[in-house]
């Protein structure tokens, strides 16, 4: 199977865009450089956007409890956070399993 190595970095870029897009945060237009975005940056930025979305849903939840917010807003905010979280966790698991596979490679 001839998959060019640059496909991996393209996947990083896609995942980064997906997760930061899921939370509605605008990613500072980051052109993938020759090496592409690295994994640490991906996890870092994705985590930040998930945390950001989590704050929004927390706020909606608190407003809900104090009787101010609407149920719909709360459910929407929590759903968005959940989707962002799912994407992040899935991509992380996949990348880590790929890493482990590489480490198991007999040299």
């Amino acid at each position: 199977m001839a998959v060019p190595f640059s496909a991996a970095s393209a996947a990083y870029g896609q995942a980064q865009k997906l997760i930061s897009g899921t939370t509605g945060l605008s990613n500072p237009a980051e052109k993938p450089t020759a090496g592409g975005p690295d994994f640490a940056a991906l996890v870092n930025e994705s985590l930040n956007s998930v945390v950001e979305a989590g704050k929004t849903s927390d706020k909606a939840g608190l407003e809900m409890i104090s009787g101010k917010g609407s149920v719909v807003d709360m459910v929407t905010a929590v759903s968005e956070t959940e989707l962002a979280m799912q994407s992040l966790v899935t991509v992380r698991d996949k990348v880590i399993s790929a890493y482990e596979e590489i480490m198991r490679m007999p040299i």
Partner: protein
Amino acid sequence: MSDFLKSLNVAASGLDAQAARMRVIAENLANADSTGKTPGADPYRRRVPTFESFFNSGTDAQEVRMGKLMYDLSDFEQRYEPGHPAADANGYVKYPNVNPLIEAMDMRSAQRTYEANLNVITSTRQMVGQTLDILRG
């Protein structure tokens, strides 16, 4: 923002609109017997919710919201109750033009539309989840 998230937001706007409609129906039903206080005074007039489509530039999608609340201009019901404080010279009291049957059907319609929007949200979440499941396999 991905199309999935837009779908969630559009469906949420539908939920909000139907919730507002439900409020108007509740107002109508609760005031079905609200007469005037002085002789010949007009009673509660039934309100009719309207919906309008609008483009939400924040989510970049066509959403729905409740438009102006209109009044139902049909005639009031007249009942002969000479002892009522709101009775006119002939003993007739004007009662609101609220028909509980119509309100019940409106309520059912609001409920069904609400459910439809909830289904959109559920399906959207399922689609995202199933797509992510490809990576989990």
